[in-house]
């Protein structure tokens, strides 16, 4: 990341596309990013001050939730889903497994409010922050206004999350010509390009569209994904295509966390594709993969792990700020 006096430039490789996020409406600054970071780690956002964003999105898991297949703590709809990893969010067009949230700014509203409707809840958060020792000053530093508003809370949280850029994996080093794939990884890369990249497209490893990848419905959850939001039959069992970066940190996999291991995922793609009518045309039937090919493919997927991102202290709990409360 590069710092100038108050602007903050998002650093990303030149082979990344232009971000989707409109930075002109929320110009990055160091102060806003740091305010967002404090809010992200502060349980003051929850009603009983017990849960923060990082309770479900841990930095050491590339900001996913690994202990549980389903995240707990918020309303029913959200409680039926696995908390996704958070990085490269500036390139994403819509959020959540079903795309119900249309803008990164607005994402924080769902977890902040534990009821179906927000009503007074964000107002409560505002008054708790306004009464705190540290926040009026942090908001002043960031927005030149110590009067805290919903808009400013959401924009600061978005800013911190926008700076979570993962682009230092082995794959990235190979792209930049600094490292080379092993023979096995190279074979896996070819298999990946043939079978997976129509949906998990490089370099972000998702085209961030929605698809039905042939998972059978879990009848204990009956989660129909995008179909429950759009109320269109063609969207039934359609979910956001997730990125495949940092898979070693983000297990379990899929919207409901049904698979704990990558070989279970490959077993699904090679043997378990359901006959659902809505299935993507990029995945008509089981993908043929020998057991050697599966090993090669996994070797390639592991080159997408970005240790530098996962252990970057800039993204971790802001001790200096939060412990001074």
């Amino acid at each position, binding site marked *: 990341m590069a710092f100038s006096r108050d602007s903050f430039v998002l650093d990303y490789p030149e082979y990344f596309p232009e971000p989707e996020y409109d930075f002109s409406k929320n110009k990055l600054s160091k102060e806003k990013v740091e305010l967002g970071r404090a809010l992200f780690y502060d349980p003051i956002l929850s009603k009983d001050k017990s849960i923060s964003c990082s309770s479900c999105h841990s930095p050491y898991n590339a900001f996913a939730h690994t202990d549980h297949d389903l995240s707990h703590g918020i309303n029913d709809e959200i409680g039926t889903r696995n908390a996704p990893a958070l990085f490269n969010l500036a390139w994403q067009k819509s959020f959540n497994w079903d795309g119900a949230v*249309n803008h990164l700014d607005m994402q924080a509203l769902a977890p902040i409010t534990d009821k179906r409707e927000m009503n007074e809840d*964000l107002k409560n958060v505002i008054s708790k922050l306004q009464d705190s020792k540290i926040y009026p000053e942090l908001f002043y530093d960031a927005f030149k206004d110590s009067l805290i508003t919903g*808009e400013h809370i*959401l924009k600061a949280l978005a800013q911190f999350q926008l700076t979570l850029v993962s682009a230092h994996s082995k794959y990235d080093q190979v792209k930049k010509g600094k490292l080379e794939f092993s023979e096995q990884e190279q074979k896996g890369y070819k298999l990946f390009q043939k079978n997976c990249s129509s949906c998990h497209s490089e370099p972000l490893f998702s085209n961030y569209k929605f698809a039905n990848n042939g998972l059978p419905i879990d009848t204990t959850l009956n989660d129909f994904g995008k179909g429950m939001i759009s109320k269109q039959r063609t969207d039934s069992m359609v979910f956001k295509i997730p990125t495949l970066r940092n898979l070693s940190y983000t297990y379990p996999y899929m919207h409901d966390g049904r698979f704990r291991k990558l070989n279970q995922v490959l077993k699904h793609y090679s043997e378990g594709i359901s006959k659902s009518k809505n299935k993507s045309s990029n995945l008509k039937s089981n993908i043929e993969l020998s057991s050697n090919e599966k090993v090669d493919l996994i070797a390639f997927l592991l080159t997408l792990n970005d240790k530098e991102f996962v252990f970057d202290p800039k993204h971790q709990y802001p001790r200096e700020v939060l412990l001074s409360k």
Partner: protein
Amino acid sequence: MKIIFFLSVLFLSTAGTATLRERHIQFDLILNKEQIELGKRYFSDKSKDSISIDAIRFYISDLELFLDEKPVYSLDKKHHLIDLEYPESLQLDCSNLPIKSYNKIKFNLGIDSTTNVSGAMGGDLDPSNGMYWAWQSGYINFKLEGISPSCPARHNRFAFHLGGYQNPFYNMQKVELLLTETKTDLPKINLDLDDFFNQINLKENHQIMSPSKQAVEITALLANAFYIQI
């Protein structure tokens, strides 16, 4: 000419002392031919039923005045949140606008789709106003909550949270109000909920919380309940 002179004198003589807006478009919310008071019970002879309103909030956007189909002026502020809990919100400030003749008013009831996908905003659009859905993006265009004995829900409560910015459930409604004659003084716009409650059946329809076809139909009924008070 006479009218204009009179108005501007009035304006000068009271400027600085008055707390209410000098020139404004007033919205009045009506039930049983009375201005609604929150929490008050209104009895309807026709339906032998009573209704009380606990919350009524809605967005008015892109308000424009026209003279013979030509735009005369539009308000600087694009979106207004009208909330009966805050009486000053029922007056849309027009103090910077010139006095001109007009015979038609147009506005939108609700928030357009571009604004709905533009991220966090402040003022009347701040999500802390309770007019933004948390679990699915989008503004609530119209919130109407209250109690009526005929409503079979828990504690006889009805709650309409009407919104939606995507087809096929695009919820925003255009409202056009024609005047019978050309005027220069600013309009009082009434929203008459008698019409509205006569057209819906609270026994069947008492809770809407997400974008749907029914939400569009109910918002259209509300859009039809606006008229100019002469």
